[in-house]
Every structure is written in structure tokens, then in C-alpha cells.
């Protein structure tokens, strides 16, 4: 029975792919007819996804019960000594990821039915979603780096397609391009890293690389700095995909995509792929302490930077995006201190509560659109909201649960996982802990600011109007709302919220520090994560101190938020009045976009323009000149053939004499 289960494991990514192919082919060949099916397409894709989910849960349960990791490979390409295999590996890590991805994907799909109900691209959206799920599941099951890279690019492509889903919006197009280009930078590093490791070890499988690297380092055949360099190159992939500094700039812009996409791809699954890859690479990284240091500090800095920017965002989705960046920073930091189990734990809890938060924000936007019209700038601005708790009770309740979870208030899921990370960070380096601790305080502040602005107080609507801080936002003053008050979203949208609330509350309980089933599960021998050092025995005093301090700073943040935003919002930011410079610094995202524009984009564009000029003037000119010269030569030479036989004979005689002379002299 179990063996049969594993033999059908390949269906997990193939079923969503099948759905995407069917609907996609239908859209291409019988576009109108397929589009008109709408619900039909959605049901098909949901059904296939459901089967994938069932299979994933079964696989996961079998792993929990202690089944050995299952690997299946086939030879994909052979060229001389080069031998490339593809296949799938089901171990504890990948089965866990399968469950996370399939559950979130299924719930997001159900949600999308309501959210996209009136969109012209309804069927296309489901095809993309299904394709993305297939790619993500393929990535999770990859047994080697090449297959990881293939699916890595595929999820990147799906992300591009979905960010630019509303391609008639300029901002969406530009965001899609930005995401793609920024990710290319990281992917290039990843590719170089893969090639580097292959060059050094001749291996592409994770454990194979790890063993060879260990041998080569021990034998001194591979200098430490080279291996460290390869490690950092591979890390560049996760830096881009998981939105770490300095390649995080694409993620906030990616919020131009439909909100379900933000939930599925840009919060729960794809951005976590980087963290997942780091966990997979951990056997290699444990031999490369410097690389780990780089990873840890990148993560810590990202967590800090994301939180500081999130403090002042007015767009609800942008705020959540920076919060995602910050939380991803936590996970990467956990990887950097070589405790992948902690990072994976946070990945899991975060996937559920952040997906819920994003879907909740989608629900809010959906409700707001009824009042302010289909303009993302107005519908997503928190200054236009307020008091939504009254109109959207389910959304408000679930959003509050998510907020509490991310703030690290016990017993919600986020508390356990974040505390775990802070704990291991403290054991590795108190500096990392300090950054994480401060970030936790800011997280509590900005999340409650978000909650209070959105759901607290009275509904403001456009009457109050954005533009308290920036005058140009007043340009959008025409009103074309359909209703005077927002409404609660339909059942297909609220149901996923409610379902997601359950793990957001409870899932943390599998990783209680004094009864940590989760880490125990991942650390079992035979899994990729067996290298985790044994944690010291559980100490109640230490736990209370650590947990107390992080809960304490969280509570401080919450209190501050209540003080600042608990009353009637007047459109004036209390922070902005007190620290105008810092406020502007945060609101403008550390001026990083401007910096990149000035230091990278502009010079590159100038270079490209010059290259174009060179191509246009010199190369094209040369080519055209050659063509012209050839034609003119042809015209001239044509007249040598004048049709007179005497001339022909003369030419022959001269040629013969000439040849005699030349060959005689040479």
C-alpha cells in the first residue's frame, strides 16, 4: 500500500500541470468557448489540486509514521562522462513542503473564485495558478540542483505572468518586468554557483555535493575561499527569490498582481522557495562557516529593513509585502545559524498566517472597491478605510488572529516559531538576536497600526481622502463608487480565511520548545536536516527569559500602536510629526529604489543606449556599406562582359600569360 503511494508521488506536480495544460490549450485553441466555461475550468483545476493535496497529506503522514525517504530517478541526458538525472525525492522536508504548498494553493484557488468572479481573465488566472502550483511542487520534489534550477525558473516565469496579469495596467507591466529582471540577477548567481559546485565536485545532488566538498576541503584540494564563494553564489538565488537585501525591491512592486497571487506566491510559497533551497543546501553549507555568516547577517538586516519600512506604508498590500520581507529575513537568519528546522518551522507558520493576512487584505480591498471604485490606489490605501470591523466581521476577526500570530503573542503560531528563531540566534550570536528582537517590536507596532487603521475607528471613505502627507495623491478626487459602505465578501472568500485561521492559531503547537515534535521530525536521521546540532536540554528559566523579552517588546509595540492610532485617525501620522526625517526615510523605503535607479539602472541604460548607437551607426553602417560596395562592384564588373568574343579571347590570353608569370615568380 505504502509502496504504491510512493509510486504515484509523481502525480502530485503532474496533476496541476495537467489542469494548466488542458485549460491553457483550450484557451489558445478555442479561446472564447473555454473562457465561457469559467466555473467549469475552475472546478477541474480545483479537483486536480484536491487530489494532489490528498496525495501530499498521505505522503506526509507516511513520513510522520517513519517511512524511509523515497527517491526515484531517471536519466535525462548523457553526453560522454556527463550524466544528468531527473526525478523526485520524497523525504520529511519535501513532504512537509508539499502539504504547505497544496493546502495554501487549494485555499487560494477557492478564494480566487470569489475574488476574480468579475474578471475577464478568470479562466486564464486559474490556468496560471495551476501552472504555478505544478512548478512549485516540482521544485519541492527536486533531487538535484539542475532540476531545482529548472523549476526555479518556472516559478519565476509564473510569478512574472501573474504579477503582470492585468497587463493593461502600466504599473503591473513594469512590476512584472522589475520582478523578472531582479530575479535574473539572483538566478545568474545561482546558476554560476551550481556550475561552480559541479566543476569542483562533479556532483549535482545535494548530499553528493556535501560529501565531496567535505572530502575536498579536508584534503585541501579545494581552497576554502573558493567553496565559500560558490556557496555565496548559490545563496544569491534565495536572495532574489526570497526578497533579501539588496534584491528585495521587486517584492513590494509585485503587489500589483491580483491579491490571491500576493497571498500564494509572494507570501506563502514561492518566496519561501529560497529558504527551502537553503535548507536543502544545509549539508553543504555546514562546511562553509563564512557563507553561513553572510546568510545570517543578510537575513537579520533584511528583517530589520523590512520592518522599518513597513512602519509607514499606507498601502495595505505594500505594508504586508514589507512585513513578508522582514519575516523572510527571520527564516534566512535561522538558516544562517545552521538551524534549518527553526527556519522551516517559521516558514510553515508564516505561510498560513501570512496567506490569511493577504487574503484578508484582498477581502478588504474587495469590500472597498464597492465604495471607491476599481482603482488600486484608492482601494488599497488604509487612510481611506477604518471601522471595517463593523461591515466585515469575519475578515476583521481572521485578520486580528493573523496580526496576533505575526506579532508573536502566545499561543498563536507565530510566537512559537519566532521565539525558536530568536532563541537559536541568541545561542549563535547575541547581535543577531538583538536585531531580531528589535524587529519583533517594530513588527508588533506596524501590524497593529495596520489593523487599527483598517478595522478600528470609523469608516472614513474618500470623504477624508488620502493626501495628508503627499499632496499629489489628491489628484484622484473624482468619485465613482457604487455604494456608500463596504460589504462583507462572499462565502468563497471568507471560507478560506476561516480555514486558514485554524493553523494560524494551532500549528505552532507542534513545535513547543519543551515538546518539539516538529524539529524532532525534521532532524530524524535520513532526512536532509540531520546535521542540526543537538539543542541543549530544555531550560524553563531560559525559555521564560527569552520568551518574556520577545513578548514584552511585542506588547510595547502594540501599546505604542494603540496610543498612536487607537483614537480617531485625523490623517496626520503621529510618527511623522515627531521624527519627520526618519519618517520620510522609512516611507521612501530607505531611498533604495532611487539609489538603484541612479547607480545601476541609469548607467546601464546609458551603456545600452551607447551600445545601440554604436550598433546603429558603426555596425549597421558597415553592413550597409558592404552591401552597397558589393552592389556597385557588381554593376561595374557586369560591363566587363561586353558580349564581344574578341574581348573574351583576349582576356583568356592575358589571363594565361598572367598566370604563367605569377606562378613562375612565386
Amino acid at each position: 500500500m505504502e509502496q504504491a503511494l510512493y509510486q504515484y508521488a509523481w502525480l502530485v506536480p503532474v496533476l496541476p500541470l495537467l489542469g494548466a495544460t488542458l485549460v491553457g490549450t483550450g484557451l489558445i485553441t478555442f479561446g472564447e468557448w473555454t473562457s465561457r466555461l469559467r466555473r467549469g475550468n475552475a472546478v477541474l483545476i480545483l479537483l486536480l489540486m484536491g487530489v494532489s493535496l490528498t496525495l501530499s497529506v498521505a505522503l506526509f503522514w507516511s513520513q510522520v509514521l517513519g517511512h524511509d525517504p523515497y527517491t526515484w530517478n531517471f536519466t535525462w541526458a548523457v553526453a560522454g562522462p556527463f550524466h544528468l538525472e531527473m526525478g523526485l525525492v520524497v523525504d520529511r522536508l519535501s513532504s512537509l513542503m508539499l502539504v504547505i504548498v497544496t493546502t495554501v494553493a487549494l485555499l487560494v484557488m477557492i478564494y480566487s473564485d470569489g475574488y476574480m468572479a468579475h474578471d475577464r481573465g478568470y479562466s486564464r488566472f486559474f490556468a496560471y495558478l495551476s501552472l504555478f502550483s505544478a512548478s512549485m511542487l516540482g521544485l519541492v520534489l527536486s533531487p538535484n540542483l539542475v532540476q531545482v534550477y529548472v523549476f526555479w525558473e518556472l516559478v519565476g516565469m509564473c510569478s512574472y505572468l501573474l504579477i503582470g496579469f492585468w497587463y493593461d495596467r502600466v504599473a503591473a507591466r513594469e512590476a512584472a518586468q522589475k520582478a523578472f529582471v531582479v530575479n535574473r540577477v539572483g538566478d545568474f548567481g545561482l546558476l554560476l554557483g551550481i556550475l561552480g559546485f559541479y566543476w569542483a565536485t562533479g556532483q549535482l545532488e545535494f548530499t553528493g555535493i556535501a560529501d565531496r566538498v567535505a572530502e575536498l576541503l579536508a584534503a585541501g584540494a579545494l581552497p576554502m575561499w573558493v567553496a565559500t564563494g560558490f556557496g555565496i553564489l548559490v545563496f544569491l538565488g534565495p536572495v532574489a527569490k526570497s526578497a533579501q537585501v539588496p534584491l528585495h525591491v521587486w517584492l513590494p512592486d509585485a503587489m500589483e498582481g491580483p491579491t490571491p497571487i500576493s497571498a500564494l506566491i509572494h507570501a506563502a510559497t514561492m518566496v519561501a522557495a529560497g529558504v527551502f533551497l537553503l535548507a536543502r543546501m544545509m549539508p553543504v553549507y555546514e562546511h562553509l562557516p563564512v557563507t553561513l555568516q553572510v546568510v545570517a547577517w543578510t537575513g537579520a538586516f533584511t528583517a530589520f529593513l523590512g520592518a522599518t519600512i513597513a512602519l509607514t506604508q499606507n498601502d495595505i498590500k505594500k505594508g504586508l509585502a514589507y512585513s513578508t520581507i522582514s519575516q523572510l529575513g527571520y527564516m534566512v537568519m535561522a538558516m544562517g545559524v545552521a538551524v534549518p528546522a527553526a527556519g522551516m518551522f517559521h516558514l510553515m507558520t508564516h505561510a498560513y498566517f501570512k496567506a490569511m493576512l493577504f487574503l484578508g487584505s484582498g477581502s478588504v480591498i474587495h469590500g472597498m472597491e464597492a465604495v471607491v471604485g476599481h482603482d488600486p490606489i484608492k482601494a488599497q490605501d488604509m487612510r481611506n478605510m477604518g471601522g471595517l470591523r463593523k461591515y466585515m466581521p469575519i475578515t476583521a476577526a481572521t485578520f486580528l488572529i493573523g496580526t496576533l500570530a505575526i506579532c508573536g503573542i502566545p499561543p498563536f503560531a507565530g510566537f512559537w516559531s519566532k521565539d525558536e528563531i530568536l532563541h537559536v540566534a541568541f545561542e549563535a550570536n547575541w547581535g543577531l538576536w538583538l536585531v531580531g528582537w528589535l524587529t519583533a517590536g517594530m513588527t508588533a507596532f506596524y501590524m497593529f497600526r495596520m489593523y487599527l487603521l483598517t478595522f478600528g475607528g470609523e469608516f472614513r471613505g474618500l470623504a477624508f481622502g488620502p493626501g495628508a502627507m503627499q499632496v499629489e495623491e489628491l489628484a484622484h478626487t473624482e468619485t465613482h463608487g457604487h455604494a456608500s459602505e463596504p460589504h462583507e465578501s462572499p462565502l468563497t472568500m471568507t471560507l478560506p480565511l476561516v480555514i486558514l485561521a485554524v493553523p494560524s492559531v494551532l500549528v505552532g503547537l507542534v513545535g513547543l520548545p519543551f515538546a518539539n515534535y516538529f524539529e524532532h521530525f525534521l532532524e530524524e536521521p535520513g532526512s536532509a536536516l540531520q546535521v542540526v546540532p543537538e539543542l541543549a536540554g530544555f531550560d524553563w528559566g531560559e525559555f521564560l527569559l527569552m520568551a518574556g523579552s520577545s513578548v514584552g517588546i511585542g506588547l510595547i509595540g502594540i501599546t505604542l500602536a494603540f496610543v498612536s492610532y487607537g483614537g480617531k485617525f485625523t490623517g496626520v501620522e503621529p510618527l511623522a510629526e515627531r521624527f519627520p526625517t526618519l519618517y520620510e526615510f522609512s516611507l521612501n523605503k530607505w531611498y533604495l529604489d532611487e539609489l538603484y535607479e541612479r547607480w545601476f539602472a541609469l548607467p546601464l541604460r546609458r551603456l545600452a543606449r551607447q551600445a545601440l548607437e554604436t550598433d546603429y551607426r558603426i555596425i549597421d553602417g558597415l553592413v550597409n556599406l558592404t552591401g552597397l560596395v558589393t552592389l556597385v562592384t557588381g554593376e561595374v564588373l557586369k560591363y566587363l562582359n561586353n558580349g564581344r568574343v574578341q574581348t573574351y579571347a583576349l582576356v583568356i590570353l592575358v589571363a594565361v600569360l598572367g598566370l604563367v608569370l605569377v606562378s613562375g615568380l612565386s
Partner: protein
Amino acid sequence: MPQLPNWINLVEKEPPEDLAMDVVSLAALNTGTIVPELLVIGTLLLVLLADLLSGRQASRWTPYLAVVGLIGAVVSLGFQWNMPVAEGFLGSFQADHLGILFRGLVALAGALSILMAIRYVNEAGSALGEYMTILLVATVGGMFLAGSDEMVMVFVALETLGLASYLLAGYMKRDVRSNEAALKYLLIGATSSAIFLYGLSLLYGLSGGETRLSAIAQQLARQDISQSLGVLMALVFVIAGIAFKLSAVPFHQWTPDVYEGSPTPVVAFLSVGSKAAGFALAIRLLVTVFPGATEQWQFVFESLAILSMVLGNVVALTQTSLKRLLAYSSIGQAGFLMIGLAIGTPEGYASILFYAFIYLFTNLGAFACVILFSLRAGTDEINEYAGLYQKDPLLTLGLSLCLLSLGGIPPLSGFFGKLYIFWAGWQAGAYTLVLVGLVTSVISIYYYIRVVRMIVVKEPQEMSLAVQNYPALTWDMAGLPELRATLIACVVVTAVAGLLANPLLTLANNAVTSTPFLQPQIQVAQK
């Protein structure tokens, strides 16, 4: 007094003393080596007889007889391939593998030229029987030329081919341009032959009266005069004669005029069969007689190749008549082929064979299209092809594929032909030749594609008058089914021969490695 060759002595001697001696000497002649040529000669006599006896009635079936005869010749060449290499006529004729392949090419060219000519000759109101007879004579001449190893034999074969070609060029007796073409061809041909013969006579004298090619080389080496001015003059004169046949620049000037004026099927044969025979002669004569002056003749051919590639392809750009364009293109193509000759490696010779095979079908396919178009639209002007794709899809497809293959566009066979010949050149270190070849190939693509564009891209309102008045597509007139079959066969080979190149290349390589007179070259290459 120079010693006369043995077989001349035989003739001049008193009649043989008894019959047994006669039989022995006949056996010593080894007549089996020329069985394919004898088959063609027999065919041509039958065609002539049939034409004489039953006049025009016979022209219904005589083309098939001629084609069957030529195919029979090709088949018997196939048998000869598997037999041990033999000398015929006391060494005057060599049935080696290189020769066999070239003779096969000439015979194939003859067969295809007859098939595509039937309708054309009927339309012009000329007698088909005569046309076929002369064409068969030219084919026999070409086949003998590809195998002959003795100076008198070479010259007789060359003149057989040449005289028959002149007659063919002037075959449209009532057409002034055909007459002009024939006259020009004759005059220039005579000049070249004279120079060639002068070269042969120099060799005869310098070698002390030898006429067999290998014996001449031995004599020249023994007297240590391989590098003397006399030998060099002989070399250049001989090359001038051959270059005329190959229409290499600067011995090419007759080509456009003759191609434009002659009947198109004749041009097809000249551009392929006559050239194949010329290359066979060039390889055999130069390698056998001038091993001591290899550098010199390779240098001369390098110059001729570069000149031909450049001039042929550049002047082709400015042509307005498709026949004239193909004439210049054939000069350029001969330039590419000469790369194989100029580098003088076994791979070079093999790639000449391979390229010649592909060029045979591609060029004949293109000419078949030109014939079909001129039959239906009555013109050869490129501008008149505008918009043809709407009226004649088969012709459009065939002509486009053949022209693109001539231009060397993958995956058509012409690309692979060029690929192997350039690769062989690069391997041999002839970088200048290969670079010139590459650049001129690019130029050639321009004029080939110009024609394709004219046919395919034009809007309906830009259609030329000739195409607007295009007759309905019928295939039931006498000779048209044969033309269509030839066209399709050529296009199919053009399309797939490159992808199935391996057997052909193996054949060509085997032919080169197993040919006795090329052995010294192979040994040099192996070192």
C-alpha cells in the same frame, strides 16, 4: 625520336599474324572497363536509328529508351564499383572509384536533362531525336573524360564533349540568340582547346614522347624538370583548358552569354554534367602529371577559386534574367568547388564529390523550374516571377527550396555541401579561401532570396503581367509529366540529401581513399 605509345604501335604495325594474337590483344585491352560508356553509345545508336526509321513517331518512346540506357550505365557503374580497379586500353582508361562516381554524375545529369527537355524541345518545334543523340554524345564524352588517363584520349573525350555542347547550344536553329551562343561557345572553346592542346604538346615534348599521364610524371621527375618554366607553362596552359570547362574566372566570360542564349535544358546539362567531367579531369590530370609542382597548381586554383567566388557572386547580384543569374551563380558555385581542389587533401576531393552530387540535383531542380516557368509564362526575367505563389504552388515550392539550398540555408542539402567543403578547407589551413567563401556565400544568399521574395512576398496587386496571364495548371501535355517528375525528384533530393548525408559522405570518402592515383596525396595528408 620519341617513343610512341604501345597501342599506337599496334595500329601502325603489320596486320596481326594470327587470330589468336588478336584475341589476346583484345583481352589485353580490357574492354570491360568501358561497358557503361558502351551502353550509352549503344543507346544513342538505337535512338538515332529509331529516329531515322520512324521519324517523329518514335519520339514518343525514344526518351525513355535514352533514359533507360543512361540508368543502365549508372547501374553497370555500380557493378564496376565492386570489381577490382582495372586499367582499360593499356592504361588509357582508368576505371577507378573516383572516376566511377564522376561518370555516374555525368550520366545522371544526362538522364535528367533529357527528361526535362522533352516538352521544351517539342514546344520549340525541333526534333527530339537529334537533341537526344547529341546530348548522349556529350554524355559519353564527359564519361570518357572522367576516366581517361592518356593525353590523346583526354583530348578526344574533351572535344567529343565540347563539340556536342556547341551543337546543343545552337540547337534552336531559328533563334538568333541560340546561334550567337553557339558561335561564341565554339570560338572560345576552340581558343581554350588550342591552349590546352599546346600544353599537352609541351608535356609530350618535355617528357620525351610520353602520352600516358603517369609516365609523363615519371619522366619529368627523372629529368628533374618538374619546376622548370616549360613545365610551368604546360601547367598553366592545361589549367586554362580545364578552367574553360569549369567556367572559372577569368575563363568564364562565355558562360552568361551561352547560358542566356542556349536552350534551358542544355544549360542545365552544361552547368552540371560538363562541370563534373571538368573536375574529374582536373583532379586526375593535375595530381598525376604535376606532383612536383603541387604548390604551383594549388596556388593557381586558389586564385581561380577566389576570383570565381567573388566575381560570380557579386555580378549575380545585378542580373535581371534568372538564367543569367544562374549562370553567374554557377560560376560562384564552381569557385566553392575549387576550394576542394586548391587544398588538395583527401577530404577536399571527397567534399568535391559530395558537393557535386548535391549541386547536380539542386541546380537541375532550379533549371527544371525555369523551364516550367518559361513554358507557361514565356519569359526568364526575374521581375516576371512576382506573385507566382498565388498561381503555381509546386513551382514556387520547388524553386524556393532549390534557390535556398544553393544559397546554403540549413537544413537544405546545399548547406551541408558548403559545410563539408569549408570544413575541409579550414582543416587544411586554407583560411583565406574559407573566409572568402563564407563572405561570398552571404552575398549569394542575397540574390537567391531576392528571387524567392519576388515569388512569395508580393501582394496580389503587385503581380507581374506574366503571372496575371498565367495559364491554368495542366499536366497532360506530352513531356510535362516527365518534367514534373524530374522537378519533384530533384527537390526531394535537395531537401533531404543533407540530412541523410552520411552514406553519401562515406561513399565519397571511400572513393577517394581507394583510388590508386590519389595514394601519394593521402600519404602526405596522413603525415
